[in-house]
């Protein structure tokens, strides 16, 4: 073996050296070619085409091709969507096809504070179309279909307060009316048979939710939940409401923006602050201060705003204390009073209602209708339950129970439901124990309501 014997490797050496070189070049180009650069170049070309003066043209031509991103430290997000969607803030791009379309209606949610993904979801850090839009493996937050976009409003804002999100408000209405809380807990209120829904919107897709409502067992084998019957509109609305429950909690600046001054927020404040102690609406309430039914006729909104800020400045000598309302709260209360003037709505303040009326609200609040049917008339299927394979209605409870027995029954529940046929699977639905969830006063009202359900004309003694 001499020096020459290694010459037979020269070919290999050259080939492998070239191969490494080629691979480095290929790797470099694959790394250097990024699809967002193509979109940026198209945008720059469009800017050049639209330039009308040499200065504009020079500006357009000097636009660098680079990653654009919105850093949202408080939200722990980095949104690079504007790397491709370059014209979101430029109204002159209205009507352009994506990715260059203008984004209307962002005045209240400026991009530099909110970014994009907090509402639209998707993967903000990604810089390819597929990955950024998020319909890729191992990313569980794909972009929210536009038809459900109002769900994002509900992450921060009360559904009912948001005039811009009527579908969200409808979804919440459907949720409460359908008695979902009978089994599911949401924001701390509800039953324990089904899972909590606090973060369901972040975990579940619209498709999954749709299947879940129409045929629960098809997505959750063995689910006790009866299939739900919704109109198409209500189905979409409740899906949207579910999608809004993401558990996203935005701190600081964002938290301060949550409350939308609205009539319903004003009504909540009105109840919470005890205004009814001095003022009356519809002849109900205190007589110390003036009645408020028609205050909207007598005073302009500006006067009312000032009144909430500091009563003495507009009504010298008034006994009304200064409550220290925030501007948002003052705006909400004013809206409420204006709303009273326009709508002439009768207030339903719990302190002014009868126990039976309050009990009906309790029945609704805890979603009893989800199992016991609307107005407690029954009819919800519970396969293999001895009670005609249904959850029993409650209109005759006054015949079978004393008030104390009924209370005990509600508090303790009944885990084992007697089966019609012991060989078949046991009935999926059961009576949950409400002890620790329902308040004592609510329980009193609920029992009063349930006792009031017995039809009057029938003879109790037969």
């Amino acid at each position, binding site marked *: *073996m001499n020096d020459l014997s290694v010459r037979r490797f020269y070919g290999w*050496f050259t080939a492998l*050296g070239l191969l490494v070189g080629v*691979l480095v070049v290929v*790797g470099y180009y*694959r*790394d250097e070619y990024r699809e967002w650069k193509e979109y940026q170049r198209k945008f720059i070309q469009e800017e050049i085409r639209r330039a009308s003066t040499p200065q504009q043209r020079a500006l357009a031509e000097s636009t660098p091709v680079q990653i654009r991103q919105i850093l949202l430290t408080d939200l722990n997000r980095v949104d690079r969507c504007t790397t491709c969607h370059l014209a979101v803030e430029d109204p002159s791009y209205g009507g352009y096809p994506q990715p260059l379309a203008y984004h209307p209606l962002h005045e209240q949610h400026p991009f530099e504070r909110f970014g994009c993904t907090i509402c639209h979801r998707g993967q903000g850090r990604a810089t390819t179309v597929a990955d950024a839009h998020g319909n890729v493996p*191992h990313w569980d937050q794909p972009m929210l279909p536009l038809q459900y976009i109002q769900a994002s409003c509900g992450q921060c804002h009360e559904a009912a307060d948001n005039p811009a999100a009527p579908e969200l408000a409808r979804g919440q209405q459907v949720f409460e009316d359908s008695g979902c809380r009978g089994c599911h807990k949401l924001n701390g209120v509800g039953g324990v048979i089904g899972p909590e829904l606090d973060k369901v919107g972040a975990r579940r897709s619209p498709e999954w939710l749709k299947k879940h409502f129409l045929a629960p067992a098809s997505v959750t084998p063995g689910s006790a939940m009866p299939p739900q019957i919704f109109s198409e509109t209500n189905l979409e609305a409740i899906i949207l409401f579910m999608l809004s429950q993401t558990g996203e909690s935005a701190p600081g600046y964002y938290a301060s923006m949550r409350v939308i001054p609205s009539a319903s927020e004003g009504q909540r404040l009105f109840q919470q602050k005890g205004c009814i102690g001095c003022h009356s609406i519809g002849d109900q309430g205190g007589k110390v201060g003036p009645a408020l039914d028609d205050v909207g006729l007598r005073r302009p909104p500006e006067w009312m705003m000032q009144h909430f800020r500091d009563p003495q400045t507009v009504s010298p000598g008034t006994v009304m204390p200064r409550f220290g309302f925030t501007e948002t709260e003052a705006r909400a209360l004013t809206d409420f009073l204006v709303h009273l003037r326009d709508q002439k709505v009768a207030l339903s303040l719990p302190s002014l209602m009868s126990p039976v009326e309050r009990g009906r609200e309790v029945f609704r609040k805890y979603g009893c209708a989800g199992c016991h049917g609307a107005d407690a008339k029954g009819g919800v299927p519970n396969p293999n339950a001895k009670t005609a394979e249904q959850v029993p209605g409650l209109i005759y409870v006054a015949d079978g129970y004393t008030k104390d027995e009924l209370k005990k029954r509600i508090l303790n529940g009944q885990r084992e439901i007697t089966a019609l046929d012991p060989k078949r699977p046991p009935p999926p639905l059961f009576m949950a124990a409400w002890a620790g969830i329902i308040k004592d006063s609510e329980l009193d009202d609920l029992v009063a309501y349930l006792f009031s359900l017995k039809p009057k004309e029938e003879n109790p003694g037969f």
Partner: protein
Amino acid sequence: MNAPLPKRIWQWFTRTRVGRSIFRVGLPESNLERSQAMVSSFLLHVQPAKVNRHSLRASYSLGLGLISLYLFLILIVTGVLLMFYYVPSTEKAYDIMKDLQYVVSAGLVIRNMHRWAAHLMVLFVLLHLCRVFYTGAYKRPREFNWVIGVGLFLLTLGLSFTGYLLPWDQLAFWAITVGTNIAGYAPVIGLKLKYLLLGENVVGQEALTRFYALHVIVLPAVALLMVAVHLWRVRKDGGLSRPDEPGDIVQQVELKQLPTNKSYGLMELARGTTPQVGQNPEDEVFSWPHLVFRELLLFLLVTAVVLFLAIFWNAPLEELANPIHPPNPAKAPWYFLGLQELVSYSAFWGGVVVPGLLVTALMLLPYMDRQRKGVGRWFARERAVANTIFTVCLVTAIVLTIIGTLFRGPNWGWVVPWEQPPTITEGH
């Protein structure tokens, strides 16, 4: 002169003042210079000036140890590059993985290289271990180098395992959860050991900090030191094993035998096997160029393979780690899946006794199997018993790993990889 241009440039450079100050010996032209080139270079001097022909035969060593070393070097270089970006924080680590992919120049390729080189290193260290076994190369005088080698194999697993957690995705989180649970099955010290590794009872920020420190400084430093010792011992134990080497270490020079009326040079006092022992000049060739050239070629090949894998296949990255949503099944890294499969039968026997015995047996092997026949040949007939026992263990480990990797589905139930497993939607 007809030499190719790069060679002429090189020759010119090594003759300049600067070139000579760096390289001392230029491109060797004579046998003397070939020796000097090896001895005067820091990087080359760990190797002898002349090397036995047998050691150069690719069919004998398969270059497996060298490939492992190259992979280790690639891992160090790419690892340092990754460290420029990485922050061992549960809040940030996953986002940084995404940034590497989407905005860092070559970030994805570097991460891919690191990942694939890490997997390959586990594989090639194991193959190297098998080669040394099947050629009986662990026998006297190389017993202790085998023990160091087994230690390096365990270190490689440790390096790979600690690195597995760092992306902080579901794959990382649950693999480490499963892996450290296996450690917890050890009697008496198991739970303490698990706690020591994790810094708390579950995988969290404490675990990430510890795994990071182990991964980027503790284990690499120890591994680097042990690699140095390993290579040093290869040289000191007489180079690669071969069939015709002398049967025993040359007798040591006893100090008292030496006349006392003169002073001694270091070489006269050095004891034990030296590179020259048992070497017949006829069987020797100069390391430069025969050994160096082959090593360079292999380095190019390893680099090309790792680059190729890294360019065309991305390292996995699943969802952000979520401690309340375990995947079903949660699997350890592939090289521990045989262990996980064993654990599924019995946590104590599979997770503690069997692997403990295996490692102990591997460590003690050269001291138990002391017969010197069949060294330096693959599958020597004289070693049939040892080879059979080893092969049975190896095949069992491979079969268990394959079962754990491909044939285990939800709840560690049996699945067939080419059939779609039943869709499991976790009950809410």
